[in-house]
């Protein structure tokens, strides 16, 4: 069960990314830490570190020798060596380290390159139109619940070749894995061990083996590593990863962008008048509202930026904080939808760059384009009714808006 944690009193020595203050608005916390102690520490979760400067976040992302990706979600119980057999990890390649990482990643990359993702744009656009059609006649709609959340969910279900009506099932799995950080690893594992998810995936795998399709499931089943078909655990782990990594992340980015536009009429008017600006605006929304904070485990005792890190310590890797570093982004807390120079790290840096970045960008752009076509004028019903997810994926979970 979730435990009630004491509130954070000092962010430099006792940070907690599930504290209500962080959940509501983490940016002032990171700004304060950036000037005070760029690498914060906490005894929570058995010991954890938090860099907040762009340079430090980048240095960790590039250092796969001192930081392992064996677990990328901070929780109460850190995995032991037997839980996640190195070097594959539970969900390759995100939980894999070099050299296995490159092999596992190489298998997946062709499915996520720009051209195959472009092919999914018509499906995504039709889906957005269908979702907007369902809101016809309403004066108030929830941009997160009624719109944003369905888009990446149904696109990944489509990519995997699973039945569209199973989309709700995945929403529950995702919530368990990413948002209930107070659950122990065992408690989370129990959900998986009840076999529901595995059984579901095994059934889809069996169907695809019997009758191969032109989809990601058959692509994975057909893939070879060193001349052998992938281990079933590898296939299942990768599918779980795609579901988990591909859904609430993009849902968060779409929701946060609509939340921003609901409050900024000048940006709405400009995008309505200059639709060709949308790809640039999408990058700025990704920078300013990057949803994903990753994590690493310290692989070996060593000194980083003057801090004595110990093997097994957690390190929270906040790409959203890197994106707000004023040393890299002038006027970093100000959203400028025409920002021309934007080396943001919303999709991470280094070898673990989000494999779905082309997909996420396409979904975000199409979702905003179709929304703006349908509802160029909209506003928050009540800013206090907007709620944000807790955990390492940050996005609004309810965004009631009044549409005209």
């Amino acid at each position, binding site marked *: 069960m979730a435990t009630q944690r004491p509130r954070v009193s000092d962010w430099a020595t006792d940070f907690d990314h599930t504290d209500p203050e962080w959940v509501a608005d983490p940016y002032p916390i990171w700004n304060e830490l950036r000037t005070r102690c760029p690498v914060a520490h906490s005894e929570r979760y058995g010991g954890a570190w938090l860099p907040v400067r762009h340079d430090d976040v980048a240095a960790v992302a590039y250092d796969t020798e001192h930081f392992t990706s064996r677990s990328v979600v901070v929780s109460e119980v850190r995995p032991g060596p037997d839980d996640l057999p190195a070097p594959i990890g539970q969900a390759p390649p995100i939980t894999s380290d070099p050299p296995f990482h490159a092999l596992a990643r*190489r298998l997946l*990359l*062709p499915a*996520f*390159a*720009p051209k195959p993702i472009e092919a999914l744009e018509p499906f995504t656009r039709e889906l957005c139109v269908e979702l907007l059609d369902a809101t016809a006649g309403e004066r108030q709609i929830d941009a997160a619940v009624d719109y944003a959340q369905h888009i990446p969910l149904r696109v990944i279900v489509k990519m995997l070749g699973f039945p569209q009506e199973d989309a709700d099932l995945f929403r529950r799995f995702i919530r368990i894995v990413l948002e209930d950080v107070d659950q122990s690893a065992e408690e989370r594992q129990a959900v998986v061990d009840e076999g529901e998810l595995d059984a579901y995936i095994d059934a889809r795998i069996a169907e695809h083996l019997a009758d191969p399709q032109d989809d990601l499931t058959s692509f994975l089943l057909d893939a070879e590593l060193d001349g052998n078909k992938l281990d079933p655990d590898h296939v299942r782990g990768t599918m779980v990863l795609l579901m988990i990594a591909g859904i609430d992340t993009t849902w968060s980015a779409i929701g946060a962008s609509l939340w921003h536009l609901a409050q900024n009429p000048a940006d709405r008017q400009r995008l309505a008048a200059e639709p060709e600006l949308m*790809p640039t605006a999408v*990058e700025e929304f990704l920078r300013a509202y990057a949803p994903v904070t990753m994590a690493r485990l310290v692989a070996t005792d060593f000194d980083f930026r003057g801090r004595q890190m110990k093997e097994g310590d957690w390190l929270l890797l906040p790409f959203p904080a890197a994106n707000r570093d004023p040393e890299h982004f002038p006027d970093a807390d100000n959203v400028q939808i025409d920002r*021309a*120079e*934007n*080396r*943001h*790290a919303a*999709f991470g*840096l*280094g*070898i673990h*760059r989000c494999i779905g*970045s*082309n997909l996420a*960008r396409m979904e975000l752009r199409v979702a905003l384009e179709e929304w703006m076509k349908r509802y160029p004028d909209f506003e928050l019903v009540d800013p206090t009714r907007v709620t944000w997810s807790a955990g390492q994926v940050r996005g609004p979970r309810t965004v009631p808006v009044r549409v005209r």
Partner: protein
Amino acid sequence: MRVHVDPEKCQGHNRCYALAPELFDVDDLGNAFELNDGVVPEGLEAKARSAVANCPEYAISVSE
């Protein structure tokens, strides 16, 4: 002007390809490479600079 992608630094963010498809392409794995030996046709200098300024990995450079 010439553009150059450092293949050691490129991680396949595909920003250059999105911003300047006249100057860059990507392989099946999403890794970028420069077209036309990196020679930037006249009139596309701003696009080349934009690709440099938007590469998260600092993998692209231009030389005059």
